[in-house]
């Protein structure tokens, strides 16, 4: 893509191309926003940064030809989960973030552990040559709506109908459970209220 | 037929529990009647079997039971995975201990007639405890033995923690944890025995024929001996017993001191000393040093206590010390004395705790300084207590004297210096025993009667029956010791043969 440069003979760690640039850009955004998510003090800001990180992920999915996943990411994560989180924060938010400030050794330990983990895992990955092939193995529309639907609802050998149903039941249960847990009904308090009346 | 009856000994209590499961706890009277009937039945059954074993003495034994004179020998494969068998058999020693147990269980059921709390569970626990104790005494297979041995500590804990008085939770925990500590030592050595013997068997009979390697015996014997000694409250593992006894309800104190504490001594004799006699000969002359505490200081400690149950607990500690003195004598007379002391002390401490429980039910205190003169109000209970006291201080005519004289004469035949010293001290400390027993009896029973005890009543028929039967047992052994001595000699002989085997 940049014919003027004569680097191709080197085994490029960073092969350049439109896709690549887009990937790196998205990756950078994701990492930066993720770091912000974790590092900012205010929990609401953190949630907002999380949205950006999720948006980056959605874009990455698009780059990986998984339109349906990207869509779901936007809808479920950004539209559902993060809004949920924001609501929760707002419901519980009159606690100052100051009261949650952690001590320095803990911050350091957290950072050191995370870095050590990442470094070790990446070190494990790097020697594996087969991961470095840029060739795409999947068909163009591997995660298209139609394919997904057929597989999800198929009841032949490769079908996922049963997990699908299980997940749907799980979702139903979650619905009920979260309502039950979150509703404002504690027997003792209720009785007190009754008495007050 | 006898074999079936023999196996029924531990099954009947278990069946009783099962029978009582569907009966509602509201039918207290029915439940108690069932339990009392079952206990009485077992009592008669065991007495009959004692007679059978006695009648069979001299008759040839089953060759599988060879070195021991085991009657009613039963051997059924049980857990094939590690070769555990269901092996039971009766010789003079364990059938007499079974008889002791049946008497104490019977008395325990009767004295806890009016126990507070859930009676259904309490009586079921007593029966379970009885099952486990019967099992321990009957079993000739180490796995079976250990299973029953463990079962008993659990029942004990539940009964103390749920039905006790005073610091019951503390006492129960202390008792159970200390016993569990002992059990862990036993378990370790049991595995050692199994693997070192190399005969793939847990049977005491089979293992006794194997001479275990000396280096194994040298560490395993003290471990196992102390493990068993924990439940017989040998110093320094005696600390559970005063707190445990004082917290326990009457029946549990009776069972704990009367029967359960003997299991340790029985284990020492039947398992540790019988299977590892070479190490026993080396170690036991040193173990007696611990007895200075039990036998000599124990009575002194009892002297300083005011709580009846503590006094009795320390008296048990000192009497159990004498059992170990008999064991450490390593002579036939000493071993017989130890066995006699197990039986005698079972009856006497049962009587002690029974009368204390009955007196406590009436006076609601166990502090001897608060009592006085109650002999006038309850002569029967008072006489029961005094009889137990006389038996405890080794008065001739009671079983305690027979056992003690056997132990002293037997222990004096052991020529190690340390044993001699301890024997001499033990003989001289019979005075201290007399001091605290008389002091207790005098403070409690004699002297002027306080105003508050004017309305006390003497024992009812049920309580009198318990006292009479237990006292009769004490007197019976004390007055006719010949047959029991000769009877016990049958089962002491193979153990002593094993001890005196030389580098076979």
């Amino acid at each position, binding site marked *: 893509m940049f014919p003027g440069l004569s680097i191709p003979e080197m085994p490029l760690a960073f092969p350049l191309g439109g896709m690549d640039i887009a990937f790196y850009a998205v990756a950078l955004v994701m990492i930066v926003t993720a770091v912000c998510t974790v590092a900012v003090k205010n929990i609401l800001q953190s949630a907002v940064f999380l949205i950006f990180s999720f948006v980056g992920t959605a874009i990455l999915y698009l780059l990986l030809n998984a339109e349906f996943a990207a869509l779901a990411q936007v809808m479920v994560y950004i539209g559902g989960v993060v809004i949920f989180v924001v609501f929760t924060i707002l419901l519980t938010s009159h606690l100052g973030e100051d009261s949650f400030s952690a001590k320095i050794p803990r911050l350091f330990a957290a950072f050191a552990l995370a870095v050590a983990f990442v470094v*070790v895992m990446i070190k494990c990955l790097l020697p594996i040559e087969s991961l470095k092939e840029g060739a795409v193995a999947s068909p163009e529309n591997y995660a298209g709506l139609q394919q997904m639907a057929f597989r999800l609802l198929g009841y032949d050998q490769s079908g996922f109908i049963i997990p699908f149903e299980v997940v749907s039941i799980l979702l139903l249960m979650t619905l009920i459970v979260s309502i039950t847990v979150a509703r404002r009904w504690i027997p003792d308090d209720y009785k007190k209220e009754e008495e007050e009346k | 037929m006898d074999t079936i009856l023999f196996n029924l000994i531990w099954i009947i209590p278990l069946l009783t529990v099962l029978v009582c499961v569907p009966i509602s706890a509201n039918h207290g009277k029915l439940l108690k009647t069932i339990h009392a009937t079952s206990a009485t039945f077992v009592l008669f059954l065991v007495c009959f079997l004692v007679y059978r074993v006695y009648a069979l003495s001299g008759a040839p034994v089953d060759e599988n039971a060879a070195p021991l004179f085991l009657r009613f020998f039963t051997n059924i494969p049980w857990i094939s995975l590690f070769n555990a068998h269901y092996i039971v058999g009766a010789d003079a020693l364990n059938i007499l201990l079974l008889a002791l147990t049946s008497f104490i269980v019977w008395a325990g059921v009767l004295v806890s007639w009016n126990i507070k709390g859930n009676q259904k569970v309490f009586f079921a626990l007593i029966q379970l405890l009885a099952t486990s104790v019967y099992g321990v005494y009957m079993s000739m297979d180490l796995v079976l033995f250990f299973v029953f041995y463990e079962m008993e500590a659990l029942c004990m804990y539940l009964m103390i923690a749920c039905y006790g008085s005073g610091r019951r939770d503390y006492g129960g925990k202390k008792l159970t944890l200390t016993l569990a500590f002992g059990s862990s030592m036993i378990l370790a050595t049991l595995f050692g025995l199994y693997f070192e013997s190399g005969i793939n068997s847990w049977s005491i009979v089979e293992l006794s024929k194997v001479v275990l390697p000396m280096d194994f015996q040298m560490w395993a014997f003290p471990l196992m001996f102390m493990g068993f000694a924990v439940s017989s409250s040998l110093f320094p593992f005696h600390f559970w017993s005063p707190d445990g006894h004082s917290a326990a309800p009457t029946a549990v104190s009776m069972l704990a001191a009367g029967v359960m504490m003997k299991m340790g001594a029985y284990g020492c004799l039947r398992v540790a000393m019988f299977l590892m006699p070479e190490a026993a000969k080396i170690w036991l002359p040193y173990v007696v040093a611990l007895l200075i505490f039990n036998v000599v200081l124990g009575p*002194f400690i009892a002297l300083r206590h005011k709580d009846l149950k503590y006094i009795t607990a320390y008296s048990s500690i000192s009497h159990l010390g004498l059992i170990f003195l008999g064991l450490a004598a390593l002579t036939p007379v000493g071993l017989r004395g130890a066995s006699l002391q197990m039986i005698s002390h079972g009856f006497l401490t049962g009587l002690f705790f029974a009368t204390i429980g009955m007196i406590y039910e009436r006076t609601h205190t166990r502090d001897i300084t608060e009592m006085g003169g109650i002999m006038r109000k309850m002569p029967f209970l008072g006489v029961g207590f005094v009889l137990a006291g006389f038996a405890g201080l080794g*008065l*001739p005519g009671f079983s305690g004297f027979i056992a003690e004289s056997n132990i002293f004469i*037997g222990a004096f035949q052991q020529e190690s*210096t340390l044993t001699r010293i301890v024997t*001499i001290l033990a003989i001289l400390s*019979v*005075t201290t025993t007399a001091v605290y027993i008389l002091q207790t009896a005098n403070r409690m029973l004699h002297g002027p009667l306080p105003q508050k005890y004017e309305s006390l009543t003497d024992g009812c028929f049920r309580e009198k029956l318990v006292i009479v039967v237990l006292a009769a047992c004490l007197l019976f052994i004390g007055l006719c010791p010949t047959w029991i001595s000769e009877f016990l000699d049958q089962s002491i002989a193979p153990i002593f043969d094993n001890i005196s085997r030389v580098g076979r």
Partner: protein
Amino acid sequence: MINDVTLSYLIFILPLLSFVVNGLFLCRKSDKAAAAMGISANGIAAISAIILAVHYFTSGLAPQKAILFEHEFIPFGNFLANIGCLIDPLSIMMLVVVTFISFMVNIYSVGYMRGDRATGRFFALLSLFSFSMLGLVAATNLFQMFIFWELVGVSSYLLIGFWYHKPSAVSASKQAFILTRFADSFFLLGIVLVSYVVQSFDFATLNDLTLSSFKAETIDLGLLVVSKADALILGSVLIFTGGWGKSAMFPMHIWLPNAMEGPTPVSSIIHSATMVVAGVYLVARLFPFFAICGSTLTLIMIVGAFTMVFAAVIACTQKDIKRILAYSTLSQLGYMMFALGVCQVGQTIVTTGWTASTFHIFTHAFFKCSLFLIAGSLIHQVHTNDLDAMGGLRKKMPWTYWCTLISILAISGIPPFSGFFSKDEIILAAFQGHHYVVFGLALLTSGLTTFYMFRLFFLAFHGEPRHEGVKAGHVHEDFAMTLPIVILAIPALLSGIAGKSLFAAFFVPGKIHAPQLVKLAEASWIPFAAVAIAIIALALAWFFYASPKARIAKALDESNRSGIYKTVYHKFYFDEMYYAVVRQFVIGGVARVARFIEDYIVGTLVNFSVWFIHKLGDLVRVAQGGYLPFYLGTLIVGVLLWRFLGNLPL
């Protein structure tokens, strides 16, 4: 078919039967039935014993030993402990004395215990005592003796504390039992030691020993290794310790005067006539054994002689009539004991002391029992033990008065009363044994005895009545109580004359494996000297307490006396010393230290181990702290460790 064996069984079984029947059945039902049971059982036993004795002494069997029956009790491996009935002159004499006195005391108790709440129990325990005492005297071996030794101890305990609502009686009973038990623990140790060395309990074997065969072997006694011969000597001292306590020799004497808290019949049978002589009897029974054991007899002599003087001195100052008699008993026991001890003359043995001692057991039993019964009779009438409150009883109780005179003359050694003969022989034996200090003390004590006995006699019976009841004429003689006193006065009067030849003929200890002193010193002047001293003492007593000039009130007032008198009056403060030793040293010292060890040292160790396990648990619990970041951190660390330490399949 009545033969010796049946009779001997009868002698043992009847008191036992009376005990069982009275104790189990009659004691709550009927006092009269219990009394009848006790009297008849003991009466038949007494008659049987007398028939047995007559038969034994007339059949020509006399000085030999015989075992009428013997049952195996406990087999101890090589040697057996049997229960049997041994008869020889000594045990026959004791059988007669015990059964006869028991019979008398049973009759007496009917009167004495009349109206008591627990008469049935009293008769049961009396019978238990006679049974145990009979078992003791008929013992064939040491073990049997120890068994019955303990049983008489416990019957003594139960009878002293018979009135258990009286704190003084209870503590006296406890003291008596514990002190004798203390001595008995040494006795038991001695039995164990001796039986280990000799491999037998039998008196026959023990009395037939020679030390030389045990010199070669050694025995480890814990702290020291000695030869078996020395161990036997030690064993003989230990065995004697049993008798030391039981016969209340100094310094274990204090329980006997305190035991007077019990009912008087008990004091008369147990604490004067029979049980307390068990110690003397033990030494007499094992005399050949003691004789070979070197200086043990010397120890016995010293202990006996000291107690004799010591108790007699105390008795001169006491005012409690029973305590005077108790100290007099102690003093007489001292006579008997040292009489056995004086048999040791250097390396040789002379047996006259043995005969004298057994003779004195015999005579003493009657007159001392009689004296106690009289004391009980007086106490029953005036309701106090105190001589302060007596006096002038001669007119009111004539029978008692004359019987008392007989008994007191007997104990004072005035001929022809029984005490004269036995005491004279004892003094003679001391002289013949060349123990002149003891001889002198014995003469002196015989004077003291006369003095304090007549002091008692004059104060109680002569002079003006000092008690309201006596003045008012409420005092009378109870038939049931007077009858045994009168009966006992007969042997108190005659047993000396009658017994002298019998004892001289038959009472010799068995064969002794020690050289015997053949040439005995003759001293025909001794009886005269003794009688003279006694008469002087009598005169002194009369002068102080009965002469028209005597100031009795002053004599009885101990408050303005000198220090020595007070010390003696307070029994040399031995009670207090004992109290201090037991309270402060044993209970306050040793027991407190033991409890301290238990509660603090053992307790601390236990608590420490519990604490340690708790801390160990806490260490593990940190990981379970519900602290989420910690969990995650550990997870990560775990992954890293797995990577570096384990074989990650990557």
